[in-house]
């Protein structure tokens, strides 16, 4: 069963333009206007990072940018809250291993 709802007794879903993005190098599709987390979940991806100390799998939890569970590396930047970050065409989303590195700017 696809995890995207096409019919709902009460709601209609207006999705944006279909866009391609990359998850750990693999091409996936999502819709503009939805969050990265939503697009990943729809594509069956539930594990977004590993925890810093014990390396445990972590994913979605609160969906409102509060709990820090869904940090990923997005276009090279670590600790992005993918549950509140909108998906854009061509984004490179990676599983975050541990804490992630700071990007130094010159």
């Amino acid at each position, binding site marked *: 069963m696809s995890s995207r709802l096409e019919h709902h007794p009460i709601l209609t879903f207006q999705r944006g333009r279909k866009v391609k993005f990359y998850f750990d190098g693999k091409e996936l599709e999502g819709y503009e206007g939805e*969050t990265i987390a939503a697009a990943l*979940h*729809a594509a069956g991806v539930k594990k977004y990072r590993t925890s810093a100390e014990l390396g445990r799998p972590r994913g979605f939890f609160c969906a409102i*940018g509060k709990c820090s569970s869904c940090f990923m590396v997005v276009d090279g930047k670590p600790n992005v809250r993918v549950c509140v970050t909108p998906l854009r065409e061509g984004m490179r989303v990676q599983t975050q291993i541990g804490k992630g590195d700071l990007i130094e700017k010159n």
Partner: protein
Amino acid sequence: MRKTEVLVVGGGPAGLSAAIAAASMGAKVLLVDDGLKLGGQLVKQTHKFFGSHRQSAGVRGIKIAGMLLSDIEKLKDKIEVVSNTTATGYYQDDGVVTAMTGEDVYMKIKSERVIIATGASERMLTFPNNDLPGVYGAGAVQTLMNVYGIVPGDRVLMVGAGNIGLIVSYQLMQANVEVATVVEAMPYIGGYLVHASKIRRLGVPIYTSHTILEVYGKDAVEAAAIVKLDSKWQPIPSTKRILNVDTVCLSVGLSPLIELLWQAGCKMKYVPQLGGNVVLRDKYMRTSRRDIFVAGDVAGIEEATSAMLEGKLAGLIAASDLGYAYDGWEADREDTLSSLEELRRGPLSEKIRSGLKEVVVEW
């Protein structure tokens, strides 16, 4: 530095109502919300509200959000909305609020009055493997399903039979997701029986005096164990059962998001009936800091109708402080106050009433 007259932090039912009220009085309002879209939890509510018709009873939450947003739109000369922006700090020395848009754009805001309507966050529950992907808060499940149209999984264990647990169980069924069972640690169902009956009629059992024991899985939830509790809340090992579920939905209560109020030095009090630490305030929602107001779940876990009424009160008074008014606003204020009292009059609001006795003061 952005300057405004009334800063509203939070764009849920309380914050939207506060912004509308303050702008209707004539004040210049800045509304900051961390969501990509305004509406807070309202935009996820497919069920019809209870209460009196004057407070939109019988209307679905999502429709109520639409009504509030159209009022915001009508007042756009007065209300500036900044979405995807989290208020990150309140600085007591100069009364500046800092906020972050997206992940790395910061701003400073200075406002004559601040209305904190940040809402609440979901509580976690302790059990082995509670950090596995597939263990989600009930609000997160609603976001995924009702905002983005994506189901969280194929088969769900719902933990908690308060109103949110019951309503989200029904919403899952509306989206054709199987709800294996609802467990509730208390010996009775906490939510309204009309919601419980709806899901029972559809064949979903609700087990009271039961809780989740643990979750199994490698990279995500593959199964979960539930167990019956004895009268001392201890698991009875012989009653352990394994459920084949790929999602565990936690609906075990909410905690007010009070960080900004602590930072601002507002007087607080621990009141379990209201969800934990909450702020002292007068009946018009003014805190111990004259320039700071609260409204909605951050002031005590209740529901959307009371949040809207509290927001309206806070918005009216904050704007009135600055010399704004409209014809008949004082009558409107008293009317809002009595609607709030009426809403809290029933036997189901006993807990709220006893909590409010401890925090509503006169300054």
